[in-house]
């Protein structure tokens, strides 16, 4: 569980933005694939699988 940080706006690929990965949005890590990649996340109601490489471009602020 965490929030997408505002400063990662420019580094998030446009396609991910369009699919709901917006700065400030709450992200939930649903599952990690058995071989540790890709990641299965839920953000803004979208359930997405993205590769770690892509995920590393998104900065997350932890929230408890």
């Amino acid at each position, binding site marked *: 569980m965490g929030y997408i940080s505002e400063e990662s706006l420019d580094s998030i690929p*446009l396609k991910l933005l369009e*699919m709901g990965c917006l700065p400030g949005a709450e992200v939930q890590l649903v*599952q990690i694939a058995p071989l540790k990649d890709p990641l299965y996340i839920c953000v803004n*109601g979208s359930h997405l*699988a993205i590769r770690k490489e892509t995920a590393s471009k998104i900065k997350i602020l932890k929230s408890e």
Partner: protein
Amino acid sequence: MSKKDIKVALIGNPNTGKTSLFNQLTGLTQKVGNYPGVTVDKKQGSCKLSSTQNAIITDLPGTYSINPTSVDESIVLKTLLKKDIKESPDVILVVADVENLKRNLLLFSQIKDLEIPTVLAINMVDQMARKGISIDLTALKEELNTEVVLISARKNQGIEAVKAAIIKCHVAAKATPMCDNKKIDPAYFEKLKAINPNYTLYELWLMVTQKNFPEGISKQEKEQLLSFNKDVSKLKRYQHKETIYRYQEINKVLQKTYLVDKSKAKDVRARLDKIFTHRIFGYFIFLLVLLLIFQAIFDWSSLPMDLIDTTFAELSDFARSNLPTGILSDLIVEGIIPGIGGVIIFIPQIAILFLFIAVLEETGYMSRVVFLMDKIMRRFGMNGKSVIPLISGTACAIPAIMATRTISSWKERLITILVVPFTTCSARLPVYAILISLIIPDTKIFGFYNLQAFTLLMLYALGFGTAILAAYILQKTLKIKTTSFFVVEMPNYKLPSVKNVLFDVLEKTKAFVLGAGKIILALSVVLWFLASNGPESYKNAAQNTIEKVANKNLGVEELQQKIAAVKLENSYIGIMGKSIEPAIRPLGYDWKIGIALITSFAAREVFVGTLATIYSVGSDDENTTTIKEKMRSEINPATGKKIFNFPAGMSLLVFYAFAMQCMATLAIVKRETKTWKWPLIQLFGMTGLAYVCSLIVFQILK
């Protein structure tokens, strides 16, 4: 299509039930065509909106936004930017999933800014109560300033309302933008708008960002638009800003109209995901699914395939005995009927495979497989999405190659296309079957497992293993720079809709029959011509044979057989077979197998048919042995040994496992990659590999 017909474009995110709605609206009037210049299938159908009004509905590929990242998605942009009266849509019907309305409205907002009359159909509203969702429809219509309809396409609810809304929207012909990009940077966008007032600001903006210019744009205007492209980072930043701005507007609308009560939501997704993507059970279930598919392909299809086989054989016999003798009847009996039969026989296996894939995709399971397999496939330069083409390849490489279109990274897609033909397609099966029965003894190993079945299994493993290995080598050698970008939506689990699955199977099977079938049929006719015509020696064959054997006192049957064999030997194809004999002798083949290798270029299974022709001349005699027996007893005059002995048979099996012998596949690869380079690399690379490996196998075993 009459002039009055309303042209409707159907657009929506993937997994919104867009196809369900399309099927409900158009039913069996659907036709699949091609977009000019590109390879994506264009699905169209007609729909009676009212007693006086018809519509032509075009189903555009599913996309999350107008900004495309794959071949499929770029079609949407191209269609929408067209200002051609004949082609451009009068009304756009946007389908949205009620559960993901926010994200779905992003696409809607982009479409709205094109200022084309738009209807919004919110689908799967039957799920609202279960998910705790409520919508204020009147307010939503007002906020979005458009026609909004609540539907449940699978349950056939709200379809009439959609039709009425299309008419209403078409008559009103009003279209207002939802967002105004000028708010991002007024001066910048003012300047853009000034370039051509005939286009909306958003259209011009799309031309700049996507570098996609419709025909109505002059050269000078194009230059001006391209000048906006110079500052790439600014462009990118504005695209990001635009997306955020769109979501802000959407949020404003939804706050007033859309409510989710999470406490009422019930979700089976999480529980099913735990099982299907589990580190052990996940792969285990996938393996079971694969086994089930293979079992079905072989088991269920054998009966209809035998039926088709005998039907066409009988049809040939019937035609032969009822048509007057002559070249034309020969063409029909020996060329066209077996040619059509050779295509039809694949339908059962292909339809069963498509059935499974359609069900797996409809239920949402396929996305989980992509998720599970991505890391593994990536090691070999492919993508989680490559799994579907590789499975499809076991039926036929052609639909498999078409299924790679969803892979957005060009390198990963190309590698998948290049290696798919290594997987054991159904055309190889009859070849394997007859060769295995000739050279592998029908005994059991480990006390229970049939050795012949085991060999077949090994050949499957060989095909798949080679595909993976080839992909690995290609990944290391291909110098293509692409940003491998991978996002897969994990849709909700759903029960598959019978109608959607059947339509999908029907459409894909039809595409196979018409696409590959044409080539296979045409080649069959060409091969028939080459086999039944020849130079002088062919024409004199009958005369010469009679003279030669005049003193041997042969019966009529035997004489006929001799003549037919000499004729084939002297036909064009016989000459071709003989001329390649020196090249294939080191592999253990004679010119007769050479002929079969050449004819296999129509489709691999023609191998069996050709050998049947070569060995079965005169098979109407009841005393002659079966083709298999004849092949078994065939002796190589040079060595005095049997032709189909173990080394030659193994060498042939290996040759068929590797060689690129399918014109139809090459044609499809050319179409999908838009150059002859890749199909030629496939042709020479695979066939070269086949030659070398067969040579090694034969020389070692000899």
